C-alpha cells in the first residue's frame, strides 16, 4: 500500500480563511471517499493524505509552502485557491514536475504556457450573453455596474459591459465597490441607483453581494440583478431576507438547489459528514478536481509523474462517472483550462428556478 | 504621628534607602537635609506608597501603612507635594486644585472653603485659575502643587523641595506659608536643599547621606555643626 500526499496552500487564517477552508474541504471530501474505495494505481492500493499549509493569501508564502510541499512532503499535486499563489507556484512547478490545481478563474493562469496547470473552475464566459439577454428582456435596457473590484470581478465586468452594449443596452453607471474590505455599500448603491438602472450587475463573495442587493431594495430598486458566479443565490438569501427580494436575479445554480440526482446524492453524503454545513461550489468544484486528478493518476499508472498525470486529465474528464463530475466538465484545453456545461438559475415569482443556459432569454 | 523604622528600598540592584528610621510627632515641622540623590525623595515616595519598601515599617498614627495603596494613604491624611510638581498640565489650575481634594470629594462645602484659603495664600493662582496649569511658569506651577496638596487637608504634609526653582521673594513666601500651615496644627515633613531657610522654621532635622540617616538634632545643633554648615549652608 502506497500513501500519496496531496498538497494545499491557501488562506487558513485571516479574512479569507473561510474561503480557504471551503476549498480545502472539497478536496478532502474527495480524498476521504477515495480512501474508502480501495482506490488502486498500477494494481497497488493507494491512499491519499492531504497536507494543508496556510499562506494567508500571500504569494511569497505560497512559494515557500509549495517548495515545502514538493520537497519535504513529496506531493505530486498542489492545490491553490488564489491567483497570486498560482503565479508564484508557476515559477517553479514545471521544473519540479508538480501539478498545480488552480482554483481561480483569472484567464492568465492558463495563458502563460505553464505545462502543469489545471484550472478548476470551468470557463465562465458562456454565462454572460444569456444573462444579459434574460435581464434586458425582462427589465429594460439600463444597466448599472456595481460589482466588486477584485481581479475576478474585473474580468467579469470586462465581459458584461460589451455584451450588454452589443445587445443594444446602455451602461448608466459604472461603479465597482470593494466587497472584500468594506461592508457599507450605502453610498455606492445610492450612486448607482441615482442613474435609474433597470438591471444591476452585482457580485463578489455571497454575503456582501447579498448586502448590496438588500441595500438596493431598501433604497427602492425594483429591477433585476445579474449575479456574478462567485456569489451564490442561496447564500445571498438569508442576507436579503427571502428569494422574493431577489426577484429577477440570475446567477449560477447553487449546489444546494440543484435537483439532479447526482448532485443531490453528493450533497446528502456531504451533509452527513459535515452536518449543518451547506456545501457551495468551492466544495463541489474542488471535489471534482480531486476526483479527476485521481482518475488521471490511475490512467497514467503513476502517482508521482506530474507530466504523465497532466497528460491523462482530458481522458479522465471523459471517463469520470457523472456522479462524481459535479462541475460538469467536458474537456480541458492544452493550457489546462477546463470547460463544462454550466447550470444556472433565475428567481421568478419569489422562487428559485433552474433553467437551461440555452433557453435563457428566449 | 508618622514614624519610619528600618526602611530600605532598592531600585533594581541599587540600594537607595538603607534602614531609615525617623519620626515626626503631631504638630512638628521636621526637615530632611541631604545632597542630590541622598534619598530624600525616595523616603517620601515610599511613605506615600508609590514605592514598596524592601523591608521596614512605616506607621501613621501607630498603624502600619507600608504596602498600602497610595490612595488609601492619602485618605488617611498623609499628603505629599512631590518633587517635580506632577501637575495635570492641560487641566485648569482650578481643576488641579479641586482634584487635590479627591479623597474628600463628598464634602463639597468643605472643599470650597478650603479652596478660598488656598487662593488667599497664593493670590496669583486666583488670577490664573482658568488657565491650563502647564502654561504657568515654573514658580507658579510650584504654587499650584503646594495648593493642591493643601486641598487634600493633610494631617501630615510631605513637601519635597518646595523652593526648587523659585525666586527668592517667592521662596520666602513659601516658607512663610509652610510655617503657618504648621502653626495651624499640620505635621510637616520638609525635604530641602535650602537648609538655611528650612532650619529657621524647623523643630527638628535629619541629615541624610547615601540612603542613611547620619545626623539628627534641633536646628541649633545642626547649624553649629561644621560639616553641616559646609555642605548644606555654604560659607
Amino acid at each position: 500500500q502506497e500513501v500519496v500526499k496531496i498538497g494545499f496552500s491557501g488562506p487558513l487564517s485571516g479574512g479569507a480563511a473561510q474561503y480557504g477552508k471551503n476549498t480545502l474541504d472539497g478536496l478532502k471530501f474527495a480524498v476521504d471517499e477515495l480512501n474508502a474505495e480501495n482506490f488502486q494505481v498500477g494494481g497497488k492500493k493507494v491512499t491519499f493524505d492531504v497536507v494543508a499549509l496556510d499562506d494567508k493569501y500571500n504569494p511569497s508564502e505560497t512559494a515557500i509552502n509549495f517548495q515545502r510541499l514538493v520537497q519535504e512532503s513529496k506531493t505530486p499535486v498542489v492545490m491553490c485557491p488564489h491567483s497570486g499563489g498560482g503565479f508564484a507556484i508557476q515559477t517553479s512547478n514545471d521544473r519540479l514536475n508538480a501539478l498545480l490545481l488552480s482554483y481561480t478563474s483569472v484567464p492568465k493562469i492558463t495563458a502563460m504556457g505553464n505545462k502543469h496547470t489545471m484550472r478548476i473552475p470551468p470557463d465562465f464566459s458562456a454565462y454572460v450573453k444569456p444573462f444579459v439577454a434574460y435581464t434586458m428582456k425582462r427589465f429594460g435596457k439600463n444597466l448599472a455596474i456595481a460589482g466588486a473590484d477584485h481581479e475576478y470581478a474585473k474580468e467579469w465586468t470586462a465581459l458584461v459591459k460589451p455584451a450588454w452594449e452589443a445587445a443594444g443596452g446602455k451602461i448608466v453607471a459604472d461603479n465597482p465597490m470593494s466587497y472584500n474590505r468594506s461592508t457599507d455599500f450605502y453610498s455606492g448603491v445610492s450612486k448607482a441607483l441615482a442613474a435609474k438602472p433597470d438591471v444591476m450587475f452585482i457580485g463578489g463573495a455571497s454575503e456582501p453581494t447579498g448586502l448590496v442587493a438588500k441595500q438596493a431594495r431598501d433604497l427602492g430598486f425594483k429591477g433585476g440583478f445579474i449575479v456574478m458566479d462567485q456569489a451564490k443565490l442561496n447564500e445571498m438569501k438569508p442576507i436579503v431576507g427571502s428569494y422574493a427580494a431577489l426577484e429577477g436575479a440570475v446567477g449560477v445554480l447553487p449546489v444546494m438547489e440543484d435537483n439532479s440526482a447526482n448532485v443531490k446524492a453528493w450533497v446528502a453524503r456531504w451533509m452527513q459528514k459535515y452536518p449543518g454545513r451547506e456545501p457551495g461550489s468551492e466544495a463541489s468544484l474542488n471535489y471534482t478536481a480531486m476526483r479527476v486528478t485521481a482518475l488521471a493518476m490511475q490512467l497514467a499508472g503513476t502517482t508521482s509523474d506530474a507530466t504523465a498525470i497532466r497528460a491523462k486529465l482530458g481522458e479522465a474528464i471523459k471517463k469520470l462517472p457523472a456522479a462524481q463530475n459535479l462541475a460538469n466538465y467536458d474537456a480541458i484545453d492544452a493550457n489546462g483550462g477546463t470547460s463544462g456545461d454550466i447550470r444556472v438559475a433565475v428567481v421568478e415569482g419569489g422562487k428559485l428556478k433552474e433553467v437551461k443556459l440555452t433557453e435563457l432569454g428566449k | 504621628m508618622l514614624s519610619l523604622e528600618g526602611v530600605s528600598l532598592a531600585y533594581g540592584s541599587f540600594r537607595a534607602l538603607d534602614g531609615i528610621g525617623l519620626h515626626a510627632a503631631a504638630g512638628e515641622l521636621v526637615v530632611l537635609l541631604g545632597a542630590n540623590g541622598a534619598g530624600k525623595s525616595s523616603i517620601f515616595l515610599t511613605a506615600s506608597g508609590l514605592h514598596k519598601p524592601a523591608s521596614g515599617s512605616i506607621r501613621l498614627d501607630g498603624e502600619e501603612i507600608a504596602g498600602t495603596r497610595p490612595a488609601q494613604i492619602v485618605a488617611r491624611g498623609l499628603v505629599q507635594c512631590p518633587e517635580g510638581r506632577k501637575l495635570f498640565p492641560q487641566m485648569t489650575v482650578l481643576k488641579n486644585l479641586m482634584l487635590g481634594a479627591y479623597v474628600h470629594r463628598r464634602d463639597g462645602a468643605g472643599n470650597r472653603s478650603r479652596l478660598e484659603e488656598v487662593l488667599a495664600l497664593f493670590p496669583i493662582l486666583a488670577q490664573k485659575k482658568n488657565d491650563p496649569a502647564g502654561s504657568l511658569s515654573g514658580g507658579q506651577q510650584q504654587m499650584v502643587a503646594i495648593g493642591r496638596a493643601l486641598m487634600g487637608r493633610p494631617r501630615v504634609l510631605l513637601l519635597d523641595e518646595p523652593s526648587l526653582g523659585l525666586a527668592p521673594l517667592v521662596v520666602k513666601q513659601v516658607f512663610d506659608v509652610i510655617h503657618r500651615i504648621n502653626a495651624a496644627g499640620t505635621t510637616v515633613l520638609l525635604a530641602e536643599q535650602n537648609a538655611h531657610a528650612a532650619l529657621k522654621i524647623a523643630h527638628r532635622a535629619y541629615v541624610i547621606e547615601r540612603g542613611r540617616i547620619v545626623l539628627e538634632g534641633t536646628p541649633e545643633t545642626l547649624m553649629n555643626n561644621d560639616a553641616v554648615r559646609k555642605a548644606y549652608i555654604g560659607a
Partner: protein
Amino acid sequence: MPKWFEGWLGWALLAAAGVLFPFVAGNDYRLTVMTTACIFAIATLGLNLITGYTGQFNMAHAGFMAVGAYTLGILTVDHQVPFWIAFVAAGAVTALLGWPLGWLSLRLKGHYFSIFTMCVGVILFLVLEKWESVTHGTVGLMGIPGPAPIGPLRFETPVQLYYLVLAFLALGVWVMKRITGSLLGRTFIAIRNGDDLAEALGIPLMRNKLVAFLVSVLYAGWAGALYAAFVRFVGPDVAGSQNTFDMTMYMLVGGLGTVFGPLLGAIAVPWLTQSLQFLQEYRFVIFGPLLVALVIFLPHGVVGTWLAWRARRAAHASAASDPIAGPQATEVRGA
C-alpha cells in the same frame, strides 16, 4: 558569546555560515525559506535605521517595499526594460517617492509620525490596487523575469538566487555597519535620544532624519525588487501592514538599534513560523501571546539584552582598571 564574536571575525564566521548554508540545506524548500528571510532581512535592516537608530517608527515600510517591487515588475513586464536597469530604477523610484513623503511625515513626532505613516502605507496600498492602468490593479503583475545573468554569473536555480540575495544582504549589512558606526550614525542616535538637545547642538533635524528615512526606504525598495524577482509575481498585498508588522517583530525579537539584532530576528523568526505551520489556524492564537510575552520579558530583544549587560560590565571593568584607554562602547557603535 565571547568578545571576538563582535569583531570582524564574528561577521566573517556569519558570512561563512551563509555561504555554506546551501550545502547543508538539503532541499529547495529550506533554500526558499532562507532566501525569502534574507530579502526581508534587507528591508528590516532599513526599517531599523529609521526606527531603531533614529527613533521614528515608519509604518509605511512595506509600502515602500511594494513600490520597489512594482517598479521592477512594471518596467520589466510592461516595458521590457533590462532587469538590472529596472533594478536600479526600483531604488531610484522608491527614493524619489520617499523624499516628499518623508519630508511630509517627518514633521510629525512620535506616535503621530507612526500613525501618519501607517496612513501613507494604506494610501500606497490602495493606489497600487486602484491605479489599474499602471499597476494592473488587484490582479497584480505576473511573469516578472528573474535576475538577468551578469557576465558568467547566472541566477536561475534556487542556489544561485540564494547566493545573489545573500550577496545583497552582505552588502546591506556592511553599509549599515558603516553608517551606524560613523559620525552620521551617532547623529541619528542623538536625534533618537532627544531631538531638542540634538537641535540645540546644531544638528539639523529634518535633514538628518530625511537622510535616515531615504536610506531606509532604499533598503525597502531594493528588498522589494529582489522580492519581485524571486517570487515572480507582485500584488498589492506586499504593501499591506502585515508585512510592516512582521518586520517590526523581527526587529524587536533581535533588538532595536543594533545591526545584528534585526538580522538575527529576520532570519530566525520565519523558521519559527514555519515550524508552527502544523498549528494552522491556531497559529496566531499561540503566536500573539508569544509576541506579548517577548515584548514584556525581553524588551531589548535577544541581542539588545545581551549587549546592554555586556556594555555595563565592560564599563565597570574599564572604569575600575584603566580609566584612560577603555574601548568604545559597543552599544553606540552597534553590534
